């Protein structure tokens, strides 16, 4: 009797604590979404408006499509820039991630089956990721400017490829390690070359793992800020940089516009993240933690 009472109490306490943190975790996201629908008078009113009243789409139409008629003149930032940045971001993040997963998974196969990199080398590979990128950005931008890669998609794709490769190798290796070798040995006896074994047997077997790796690295490249800030100038901007341009474009704070842009950047990322939620732990821990 007393025991079941206590169990009930702990269950309630658990719900209270979890709900408490859920509110903390969700409130900023709620605020961003709510602000993106607010008309300009409610962006920083006192007392604050928690819900847009009435909700309006003007922020979205103005920011994403440069629709002037929705803009009070002082807030008008009329151009279709964000759509171009969206295109840039998609191309850059997509290409770099694809390269990373493609070459990473082949390397991972080599490491898993032929030990082309010793364990020490594998951990040294992680250094590419663990040393803060700030320490190389200055010489990198000079190097790129000599090569004419500054402000180009190629430059950004190359450096994203390099910095996400460790994640790709480690994460796909953790999937390949789980594939039994017997199938490959059978293929080899039947006369398949090593490359055919990789592309027609092993990689198809870890298909879902490859998709998870792709989406995971897409999260990293999509939201990357520092390298994009340095390497891109005017021709090529990615979405996070585009968002930071709204800071200080006008004297007034343009929260509603920022929020509309921020929602557009974040929602795809959240969808991607929720699709691979089971694999996030594996990704962030370089495949060391599995579920």
């Amino acid at each position, binding site marked *: 009797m007393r025991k079941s009472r206590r169990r009930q109490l702990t269950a309630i306490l658990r719900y209270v604590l979890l709900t408490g*943190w859920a509110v903390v975790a969700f409130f*900023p*996201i709620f605020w961003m979404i709510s602000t993106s629908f607010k008309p300009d008078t409610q962006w920083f009113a006192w007392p*604050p408006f928690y819900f847009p009243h009435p909700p309006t789409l003007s922020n979205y139409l103005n920011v994403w499509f440069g629709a002037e008629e929705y803009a009070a003149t002082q807030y008008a930032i009329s151009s279709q820039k964000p759509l171009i940045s969206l295109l840039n971001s998609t191309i850059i993040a997509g290409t770099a991630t694809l390269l990373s997963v493609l070459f990473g998974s082949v390397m991972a196969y080599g490491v898993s089956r032929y030990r082309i990199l010793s364990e020490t080398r594998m951990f040294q590979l992680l250094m590419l990721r663990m040393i803060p990128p700030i320490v190389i950005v200055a010489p990198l931008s*000079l190097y790129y400017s000599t090569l004419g890669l500054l402000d180009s998609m190629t430059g950004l794709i190359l450096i994203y490829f390099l910095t996400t490769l460790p994640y790709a190798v480690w994460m796909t290796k953790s999937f390949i390690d789980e594939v039994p070798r017997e199938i490959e040995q059978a293929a080899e006896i039947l006369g398949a070359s090593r490359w055919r074994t990789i592309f027609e047997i092993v990689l198809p077997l870890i298909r879902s793992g490859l998709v998870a790796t792709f989406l995971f690295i897409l999260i990293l490249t999509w939201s990357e800020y*520092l390298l994009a800030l340095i390497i891109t100038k005017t021709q090529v901007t990615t979405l996070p940089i585009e*968002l930071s341009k709204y800071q200080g474009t006008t004297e007034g704070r343009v929260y509603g516009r920022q929020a509309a842009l*921020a929602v557009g950047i974040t929602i795809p990322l959240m969808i991607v993240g929720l699709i691979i939620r089971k694999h*996030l732990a594996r990704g962030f821990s370089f495949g060391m*933690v599995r579920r």
Partner: protein
Amino acid sequence: MSVAAVPAASIPSQASPRERSRQRAIRRFRWSILAPLILLLAFVLMPVLFLQLYFSFHQWTVYLGSWWDAEFVGLDLFREVLTDPRFGWAVVRSLAFATGSTIGCFVIGFALAYLMRRPFRGQAFYYTVFILPMLTVPVVVAYTAEMLLYQSGPINDLISRISGIDFKPMWLTDPNIALPTVMLLEIWNWAPFSFIILLAGLAAIPTEPIEAAEILGASKWRIFWEVELPLLRPVIFLALVLRFLEAMAEFPKTWALLQGGPGTATETLPVYIFLTTWQYFEISKGAVMSYLVMLLMIVIVLFAIRLLRREKQSLDAMYAGQKAAG
């Protein structure tokens, strides 16, 4: 194949010609797999590291002519940086920021993971909500924080309403609070990381030792400290080490929100290097600082890697044991 045709003394092992050609093929295969990495290291990373070294010993800024005939100054720049109190403070701030936010992420992540270690109704819902902060772009976190935290903003309003007292700290403009504010943002942003890793760890704990301890009559508290915690050690290390390294490199939130201000209150190492290079255009000084930070980080990372290697072995052993068991 005719093994007898090859004199036995000339071959170190028992390699037949066929075996040898196989070895060659494998070697070729290895190199072709490694080629992209080697090319990237040789043509992207190496030149960059070389340039960084060059600028560390040559005085150059963007106003001067071409960088290749910059003046050689020996160790002068290193002396300048090492005696710069701002640099020292940036190191202290970065370490404090990384330590504080790592501990914060860990405590919250562990508490959440522990509360959710057994299935219950609504678990999937909470899991989904808890990982959302990790899936927001860091710059977005910074700008959203600005919308939330200005002095008459919603956070102060909410806290005042709930507590009934007039709660009005200047989160972003008070130099004493600014760094803790950024730390709180980092914790909000990345506690989910510690949470998912620790939850995965808790889920992977074998149940037998816990049941055995329960049968032997151990208290819940003792089971936690003496059975569960030791089994969790690898994931705990992983959560702490990886988070600490990421926090040392944190730039987008600190920069987008405060640019190192107010004053120098949030000037962490990445921010100070960025300011030196792109606001004061002291490229050489920035390079020296980068170099020193890189050395510092290499020391930390080598230490971290040693820890990770050890813990990875015990993790692999645990997963192997699980596979064997069922």
